[in-house]
């Protein structure tokens, strides 16, 4: 049985296979484990790998699984990502800018029809006392401004869209 999980931009394919009391786990055809003794409680899952029992806290939320291990926490996406909710560099989006974090739209220093150069600041979003400048991915003309200054915005929503020649 194969499962696909994504961490940031990295895809993991995990296959589980049950043999008697053991589960064979293979990750990306590279890492192989034999685990056993699964016990799941409300927010903790435990299993044995070699001579160690791992007790791992988790949480679930729609298409995400959250797992804490060794001080780090991992957020895995279970389904193919749609644009909203995805976390990819703003530059990749081509003709728009969006904020990687929810926050307050502090400033939109451009107007409809403005000609802007790649790297020009199109919007400033503030969250938790940190300001983030969103810069034009390429040269273009401001085609659409979806929010106004003072609006509370979510992550990954296009704020300013450009016409790119």
């Amino acid at each position, binding site marked *: 049985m194969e*499962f696909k999980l994504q961490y940031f931009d990295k895809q993991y394919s995990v296959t589980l296979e049950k043999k008697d009391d053991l589960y064979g786990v293979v990750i990306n055809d590279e890492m192989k484990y034999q685990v056993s003794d699964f016990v799941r409680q409300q927010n903790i899952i435990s299993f044995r790998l070699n001579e160690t029992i791992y007790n791992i806290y988790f*949480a679930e939320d729609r298409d995400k*699984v959250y797992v804490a291990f060794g001080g*780090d*926490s991992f957020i895995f996406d279970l389904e193919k990502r749609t644009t909203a909710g995805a976390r990819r560099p703003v530059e990749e989006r081509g003709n728009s800018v969006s904020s990687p974090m929810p926050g307050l739209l502090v400033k939109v220093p451009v107007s409809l029809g403005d000609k802007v150069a790649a790297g020009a600041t199109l919007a400033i979003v503030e969250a938790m006392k940190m300001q983030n400048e969103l810069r034009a991915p390429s040269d273009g003309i401001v085609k659409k401004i979806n929010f106004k200054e003072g609006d509370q915005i979510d992550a990954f929503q296009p704020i300013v869209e450009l016409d790119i020649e």
Partner: protein
Amino acid sequence: MFKKILIANRGEIAVRVARACRELGVATVGVYSTTDKSAYHLRFMDDAVWIGDSPPQASYLNIEKIIDVTKKSGAEAIHPGYGFLAENAQFARACEDAGVVFIGPNSKALALVGDKVASRTTVKAIGVPIIPGMEGLTEEMSIFKNMAKEVGYPVIVKASLGGGGKGMRIVYNDEELESCVAAGRREAKSAFGDDSVYLEKYVDRPRHVEFQVLRDHQGNVVHLFERECSIQRRHQKIIEETPSQALDDKLRAKMGEAAKKVIEAADYTNAGTVEFLLDENKNFYFLEVNARVQVEHPITEMVTGVDLVRHQIMIAAGERITLKQDEVSQHGHAIESRIYAEDPENNFLPSPGKILTLVEPSGPGIRVDSGIYQGCDVPPQYDPILSKVIVWAETRSMSISRMSHALQHYIILGIRNNIGFLKRIMDTQKFIEGNYHTHFLDENEADLISKHDDIGIALIAATFIASEKKRVYDARAGTRAELQKSMTPWRELGHWEICGH
């Protein structure tokens, strides 16, 4: 003693102050903005009052409203915590005018220490070393140029008001100077409403060592030793420890005396911290006075046994400090780690959101000062600090081991956080050796980001959770009969939930 105190803050520091109040038998009034109506700090208050909408300007920075609700509530004093209005001399004056006690320094001392140029002058006059640089404000570029030449490059341009690195620029040569001053002015203006900047010699790779001082209205003054706060990210302290590895007893005593002289010279009252830079040759220079209870105050509490917040309240109520300098001592070693809602793997972007699972570390020598609970929302409007882990142990090495394990067992799921990043600092050889400086993080940041060596374990856990999610999903989607026919991973894999020993 006061009968009732209003706590004009939120998060962990509001909780900390409320705990001190209830142990003193003082009633508390909490305040909250619209987004904070279910915030954690309100669970610790005897009463709670709404003070405005979510933006800080409308609520936690709303001086008029806060004074108004204080009067209406019958509270005799306001504790401002840190941040927000804690070092706002205008607020301290407004309290004085309204006949409410501001639990902090008097407004005159607060104004003096808030002005970096004025406090440099005061401090120089009493013979405490300051970093060579300008001692007055000017708009004249030529004066900046001459001073830079006099002290030698690199120099640093700083805002006269405020802190946190805003308006700060390091300048390496004459050519950059003018544009850096201009940029510093713009940033200072936008951050603090005042574009005054000044210039001083830039001390390379210094250590940041500060001394905690208490002074009462009767003039009794005592210092409670140092805190080393050199582990900083973008001028923001994230790990602090005491005692500092950089001081010996002689230097410690000398700096402690200097700190007390600074506090006395400013006629400062209540708790204050005198910050120093220590250069590679162990010369120390006065940096500034922090006129508030500091985020890192618990490590001083752990090694001296002195409750700082309680002392703040007692001093504000007019009581005398009964501690004598030769009776306070440092016992063992303490470290604090600040837990932030930020993503070390994505340029430390803030990460507000809902906390789905929360498990705090506990046990001998571990203290967690927290502002969150499982199920709470971490709003995007405020500082990203979630909580602080403070540990104490007999020795520095045990203290580091304790902190590393405490962090490893601190579970916050739902939002991204810096716990793993902090743990890796604890496990770093350079930190363990104790020989570090304020550029430590900048120089080592790349090594401190997770390498995901353990992602296999996390993936095993996540996959089993996913297999059950799928099973539940399938069971909902289909009828029982259809479910029997379909090859769900669940049936294929067997039911592992209840399997035990």
